[in-house]
């Protein structure tokens, strides 16, 4: 699915989290929203996911206006910063949640749900943890379960807020490849937020550099590295 962001702005009371920003994301791209803390990355991601509504501007999914689409109808696979796994449910029930929440006529049978959850557990390379609770998992395992839970709803896009933020350096590198692989297998348009320029450059097809609620530059990693458009971008990517 391609995503069109047209002149989106967002105010929280008197603070402007996003000045009008525009961005066009082709279908199947893996995009990094890169910028320092407070630059508006999470706000933009939440607007795409329908968790926040813009003060002005439009969002188009495959050319259709989605600005006022409810969070449920967006079908965005959202991975939260600290994963937000349901702590009172097993890993299996976490992943099955979205399928079970569907209206009766589109809800798969119990056996079909089990089959899909098992497949997703294999996809994230954790086939044996279905019966565990989130508190019994490592940080890296939690991240992958959050991914599987988001993928279970057959999302139209993936939105990931600092998916590696809570992990140590070694796990981080392993999971980077994991995310790339999953993206390549599913072919879903995916947007992830990060403040780590190395991570963005290494992983993404398209990097969006943000600062203070504005988009500073959009481009392929090598282009941004070769031709930083502003002083801010030059400094940020050399840090």
């Amino acid at each position: 699915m391609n995503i069109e962001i047209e002149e989106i702005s967002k105010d929280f009371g008197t603070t402007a989290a996003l000045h009008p920003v525009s961005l066009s994301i082709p279908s199947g791209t893996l995009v990094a929203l890169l910028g320092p803390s407070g630059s508006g990355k999470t706000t933009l991601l939440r607007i795409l996911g329908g968790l926040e509504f813009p003060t002005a501007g439009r969002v188009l999914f495959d050319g259709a206006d989605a600005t006022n689409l409810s969070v449920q109808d967006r079908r965005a696979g959202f991975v939260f910063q600290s994963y937000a796994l349901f702590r009172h449910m097993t890993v299996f029930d976490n992943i099955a949640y979205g399928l079970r929440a569907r209206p009766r006529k589109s809800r798969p049978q119990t056996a079909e749900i089990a089959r899909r959850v098992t497949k997703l557990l294999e996809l994230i390379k954790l086939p044996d943890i279905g019966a565990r609770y989130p508190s019994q998992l490592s940080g890296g395992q939690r991240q992958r379960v959050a991914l599987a839970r988001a993928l279970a709803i057959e999302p139209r896009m993936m939105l990931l807020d600092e998916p590696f933020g809570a992990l140590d350096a070694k796990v981080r590198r392993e999971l980077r490849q994991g995310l790339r692989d999953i993206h390549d297998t599913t072919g879903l348009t995916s947007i992830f937020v990060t403040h780590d320029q190395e991570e963005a450059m290494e992983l993404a097809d398209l990097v969006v550099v943000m600062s203070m609620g504005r988009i500073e530059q959009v481009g392929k990693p090598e282009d941004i590295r070769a031709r930083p458009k502003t002083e801010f971008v030059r400094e940020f990517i050399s840090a």
Partner: protein
Amino acid sequence: MTDTLTISSRPRAFRPATTEPTMVKWALIAFCLAVLTVLLFAPLFAVFDEALRRGWAFAVASLSEPDAQAAIRLTLLVAAITVPLNAVFGIAAAWAITKFDWRGKAWVITLIDLPFSVSPVVAGLLFVLMFGANSALGAWLVANGFPVVFAVPGIVLATLFITFPFVARELIPVMLEQGRAEEEAALTLGASGWRTFLTVTLPNIRWALLYGVLLCNARAMGEFGAVAVVSGKIRGQTTTMPLMIEMFYNEYLSVAAFTMAGLLALLAFVTLTLKTALEWRYADQLAATYRH
């Protein structure tokens, strides 16, 4: 290098930083037990001892008296009405306060505590002023056959007011601590608001909710001051268990008074036992809900 070697090779009795010397530990435990004995066990024992002074049969007979029976029924009725209502109010208030941002929120949090800071007698007088026969509203209500003051509705209202904070106060810190992320996750997965509440919010707060409900129940059954003002203390009609105890006591019917007091204490004891049993039974889940 040699320093570290000598230190690590010398056997020394290390103890965890939080473990006090055993002397201190036992002294503290003994002190706690002493305080509990004087303030809790001894009075409780005295109540039951006094109640059973003339034997079981006499004690039971004092409870079988129609007025006593009416008081027990009324207290159970009032609790049965107020506890579910305040559970719902408490959840709604805690939800509004912790899951949304709105103006005047801090003010409302303070208001929730009002029943704790206002003397129950004042609360009772408030209801008399509002609904008593001297007020326009009260006069109208009486004329239409629905008296509030000196009647059961007034007792229910006063009890509702007094016990309002218990559930909300238990829930607010827990819900603040848990944040909104899990609810948001459920919404992005396609769940409706109601489904999210039932399958995510409610399971996450169920322990706090249970504690709140038990405390609320204990107070609903035990409330004296506010209820005394609004009830008018009509024997067999508007007299709850605590009021009945006072009446018996004032009439020198000390066995009856202490038997009913013992029954009230027993009800509280049952709720506490229930809570402990549930905690023990679901220790795993409890840990899973609060760790993470």
